[in-house]
């Protein structure tokens, strides 16, 4: 529980809150990028350098750009007349608060039951690479197949239809 932890946690939570609360979709996309960056800093502070840089590359580099593209392609930057929050927003907030209180209660009550070691794990990128092509080679291949299928599927779904209304 250091000052750095609280600073990083503040960045991540503030970015997430701003993403949900800001009215303009482009501002939300920028705020969620800040939240992704805060979570990448959290991974780095947990001595998971590889996961932290994967987070920067995939989320800040790809997912945030995808979101911006989707906003531009759907004219989502226009503010709707009825407001940005749905008519049942109170129910949503209550459900989210209930979920947070249940998880928080469970975490605080089970802290002593979890085994904790405090020394830094000695894991290099080399070890991760060996594990990826060793015991985890089947999941790696399945993820490669899934990513290929998802890329082709997304391109086909978003492609213009021939002879459509446009």
């Amino acid at each position: 529980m250091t000052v750095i932890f609280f600073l990083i946690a503040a960045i991540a939570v503030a970015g997430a809150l701003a993403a949900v609360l800001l009215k303009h979709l482009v501002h939300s996309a920028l705020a969620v990028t800040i939240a992704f960056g805060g979570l990448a800093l959290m991974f780095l502070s947990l001595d998971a350098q590889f996961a932290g840089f994967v987070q920067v590359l995939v989320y800040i580099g790809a997912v945030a750009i995808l979101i911006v593209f989707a906003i531009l392609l759907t004219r989502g930057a226009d503010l709707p007349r009825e407001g940005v929050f749905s008519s049942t927003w109170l129910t949503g907030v209550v459900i989210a608060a209930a979920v947070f209180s249940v998880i928080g209660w469970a975490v605080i009550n089970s802290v002593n039951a979890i085994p904790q070691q405090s020394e830094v794990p000695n894991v290099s990128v080399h070890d991760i690479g060996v594990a990826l092509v060793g015991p985890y080679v089947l999941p790696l291949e399945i993820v490669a197949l899934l990513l290929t299928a998802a890329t082709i599927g997304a391109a086909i779904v978003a492609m213009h239809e021939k002879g459509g209304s446009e």
Partner: protein
Amino acid sequence: MTPLAGYLLVAALVFAIGLAGALVRRNAIMVLIGIELMLNAANLNFIAFWRYGPHPEALTGMMFAIFSIAVAAAEAAVGLGLVIAIYRHTHTTEIDKINRMKG
């Protein structure tokens, strides 16, 4: 409070914010942003348990988080493609107005 509990509480907070965003906002893209925040919170849990768990050299939590990031990227691509396809049919991304299954 132990460091692990701190990370788990931050993850729970980000998860709840993402859930609220997915439930409260009108726009389909905001719902996807909320889902991405929830997936990120789950990844933070994986990494925190890997770091403070009994066998970090087994790399289990780290691998799970890396595969989860890859699946989340695929989910984002397909989800945003679907939003664009729906927008082309209905000319709106507001979920309240997308209430017909006929194209």
